[in-house]
């Protein structure tokens, strides 16, 4: 069975900086991959390249066996990829509910010109997603009025609404209050396993990584330095030194 995501010698270099160094990478369906690494190691850049936001200088990207190297984010999303961002990307002048409504009608693809958005969107599904991430009470508040942690929740919820095959989350629990981190990840993982969604998330919190990941990839200076089961990677001396900051 071909990998869900595969990259071949994927590279991005600009102005002397090598953000991604000939990366050969494979992600199988059903995996829960945690990506760790220091800031600037290339974790987000790699996501940007794979999802089409940045064009690589060389190399190829395959999703479900299909060459998507030249595609833009819109088409890659349509292949079944959902993404949340390090800095939550929301529609700040819309309410929480409206953000999810836009995600849901986006999924369907046809935008009505006369029927109201709320009528066109599946409100039950939106209510369910909001319950899942704990945003039900703030449904009618403007996204701009949400504190950082809840913005993260909304960002993840929007990606979830797309019912993707692969959910990529960039630092989903950063900014979320520590008591809530586990609740969020647990809820998301529950939703994902219900629907057999593969997950790929960037995380700095080692507890979250150990608890929810089936595989860990550690990035150092544009390369994947270690890749394997969590206990193996987290025990690796280079990873401990360069990424976790432990002697």
């Amino acid at each position, binding site marked *: 069975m071909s990998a869900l995501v595969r990259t071949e010698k994927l590279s991005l270099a600009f102005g002397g900086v090598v953000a991604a160094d000939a990366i050969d990478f494979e992600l199988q369906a059903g995996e829960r991959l945690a990506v760790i690494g220091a800031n600037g190691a290339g974790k987000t850049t790699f996501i940007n390249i794979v999802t089409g936001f940045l064009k690589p200088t060389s190399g190829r990207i395959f999703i479900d066996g299909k060459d998507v190297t030249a595609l833009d984010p819109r088409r890659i999303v349509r292949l079944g990829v959902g993404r949340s961002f390090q800095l939550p990307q929301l529609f700040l002048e819309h309410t929480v509910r409206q953000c999810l409504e836009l995600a849901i009608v986006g999924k369907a693809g046809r935008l009505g010109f006369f029927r109201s*958005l709320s009528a*066109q969107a599946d409100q039950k599904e939106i209510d369910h997603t909001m319950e899942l991430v704990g945003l039900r009470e703030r449904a009618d508040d403007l996204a701009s009025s949400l504190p950082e942690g809840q913005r993260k929740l909304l960002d993840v919820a929007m990606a979830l609404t797309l019912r993707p095959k692969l959910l990529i989350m960039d630092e989903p629990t950063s900014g979320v209050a520590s008591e809530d981190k586990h609740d969020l990840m647990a809820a998301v993982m529950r939703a994902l396993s219900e629907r057999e969604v593969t997950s790929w998330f960037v995380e700095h919190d080692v507890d979250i990584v150990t608890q929810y990941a089936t595989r860990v990839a550690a990035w150092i200076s544009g390369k994947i330095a270690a890749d394997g089961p969590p206990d193996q990677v987290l025990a690796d001396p280079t990873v401990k030194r360069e990424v976790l900051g432990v002697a």
Partner: protein
Amino acid sequence: MSTNLVRTMVVIGALAFLGLGLSLPWLKTPAIFVLSYGLAALGVVVMLRGGQISFGHAMYACIAGYTVAFLQRAHPELDGLVLIIAGMVVATLAGGIIGVFVVRYRAIFFGMLNLALSMVLFSLLAKMYEISGGTDGLRIDRPTLAGITFDRSGYESALLIGSLVAAIFCGWLVQRYFRSAAGEALAGIKTNEARLEYLGLSARRILWSGYVISAALVGLSGALFALVQGLVTPEMGYWLRSGEFVFIAILGGSVHAIGAFMGAIVFTVIKLGAAAFLTGVWQMLLGITLIVVILAAPTGIAGLLRIGTRRAPEGGAR
């Protein structure tokens, strides 16, 4: 402010227009100009929703107006309604074609390209005397309206009623568009275009639809303008005219379709009032008004009256 209140305002406004317009003959043409400018500003408001400002939209009024003039020259027997629809259709088609190129641009570049295109049209019309009548323009004779031949006063009354109906209908349609999926997605372009793309939506396609709608509205305004003025000139497409449309849109506010018409009323009242009582300073008065609005009430008159506010417990007017 609730929908019912807006509806009441529209009814009162329409009655006022009709009442004043039909009883005071000298108010008829100004009233029609208000509605024409309001429709054009409404077109600009649609673009504002997507966070883009065009400094060239007057070209669509110009295209529609000259279409009316050329058509009438070729077929003098054509009814006014046919002329208006034809003008609007041609302007919309132009918008569709130009839109394909223009929606790749954002912010000041969007504004500049539209400006450049409108100035190309203006310059061509101004110089090609044989075809366009040059800066003198082309005259338009009073056609029949809905089959009826009117005298001057009746013609103006009929146009007033027609414009009013068109304005209300368009305003209503645009409001529905704003609340529709396509319209809310358009508003999403303004706040986070990358997010739209990551939801699988094409920002370009959404903006293009909005652009075509705005071209149609400005085209309609141009056709009405041509019929009431009885003359089309290249000035209809000059950058100052586009600027006036933007002015009115900001003055009235882009939070609700009715804002465009509120802005048009204030604009025309100041312009006429200044011309009547303080000759030669209407631009100054308008300029001061715009500055005051931008400093004190950037969401315009409609925003000030909190029209179109969501029933959200937190957060302010949208």
